[in-house]
């Protein structure tokens, strides 16, 4: 490895630089040529100001400086990255949360029961199917697998407009959700339970196409 520019290391009075200084990290070992590693490193950093004939001809010093240059570069990258325990913990927590968000695993409609889908993935598709019914917004969607079979129960809460009879609207949602479960996912649905949990304002001719919740809070 070439010694690019050892003097690129920040001045030693910088506390951060002192912590990250490569020579400090490995201690003060003596090289076979008799020089201390720290001395060789200091000489290399000062090479432009004070030419050193020993350094030019000594393979031990050259090798040590090359190694320290690599270590210095690595240390500086790590320092910039600041992989503190908290940072690592944050990454671990993000990974764990992402796994938890998947929810339970549901069987797809296959007799081997070797094909599964995460509850969140299936719920997203089913909620979207309900949302496609005019005047309806899905508020929540939970799926529960039946014991010992591939069938799944769907429980959904809805917000709906009151401009049409609720039984007919619920039947539309049921058809839409059942169709999506079978045709988009491949789930075997045993039951679809719907609960209307809130009311949407009906569309006004001049308003946008999206109904809004009556309390104005949106979804």
């Amino acid at each position, binding site marked *: 490895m070439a010694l690019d520019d050892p003097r690129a290391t920040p001045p030693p009075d910088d506390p951060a630089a002192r912590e990250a200084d490569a020579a400090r990290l490995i201690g003060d070992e003596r090289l076979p040529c008799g020089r201390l590693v720290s001395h060789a490193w200091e000489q290399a950093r000062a090479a432009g100001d004070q030419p050193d004939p020993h350094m030019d001809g000594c393979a031990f010093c050259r090798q040590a400086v090359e190694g320290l240059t690599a270590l210095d570069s*690595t240390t500086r*990258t*790590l320092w910039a*990255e600041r*992989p503190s325990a908290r940072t*690592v913990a944050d*990454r*671990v927590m*993000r*990974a*764990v949360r*992402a*796994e938890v968000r*998947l929810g339970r*695993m549901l069987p*797809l*409609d*296959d007799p081997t029961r*070797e*094909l*599964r*889908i*995460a509850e*969140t*993935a299936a719920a*997203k*598709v089913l909620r*979207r*199917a309900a949302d*496609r*019914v*005019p*005047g309806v917004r899905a508020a929540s969607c939970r799926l529960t697998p039946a014991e010992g079979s591939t069938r799944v129960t769907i429980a959904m809460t809805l917000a709906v*407009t009151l*401009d*049409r009879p609720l039984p007919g609207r619920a*039947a*539309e949602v049921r*058809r*839409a959700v059942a*169709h*999506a479960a079978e*045709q*988009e*996912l*491949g*789930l075997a649905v045993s039951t679809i339970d719907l609960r209307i949990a809130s009311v949407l304002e*009906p*569309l006004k001719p001049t308003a946008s196409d999206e109904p809004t919740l009556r309390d104005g809070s949106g979804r």
Partner: protein
Amino acid sequence: MTAVRTASVERTAARAALAVPGVSELQPSLRQSLAEAATRVRRTLGSAAPSPETGIHAERAPRTGAWHVEVRCVLDEDRRALDTARDVRESVGSAVDAYATRHGIPGPVTVVVTVTRTTGHRPSHHPGTTAP
């Protein structure tokens, strides 16, 4: 069975899964995500590339020699998830079986496919939906 052989089986399975139409990507397991969290610093130094077997876990039962392969995948919504998952199972099963036979580590292969996410929106019209 060495770890190297298992990693090769996992790479074989990953290639086979990604070749199936409708498979968008493979999703790392929690174990792989945690390993990723710990090794990300090393990658900033250019010392390691993303693992090619991400999203795959393979094991061989010591007594029976049976292979158990788990695949976690993200699917396109252009195809029914069940159909794509079946194709992944067939493709990975065949690829692992062929690899294991070729390398003298044959055994029955079981493939479990988990769909963790679907991507891309397919506008579809379902029966019975009418305007208000």
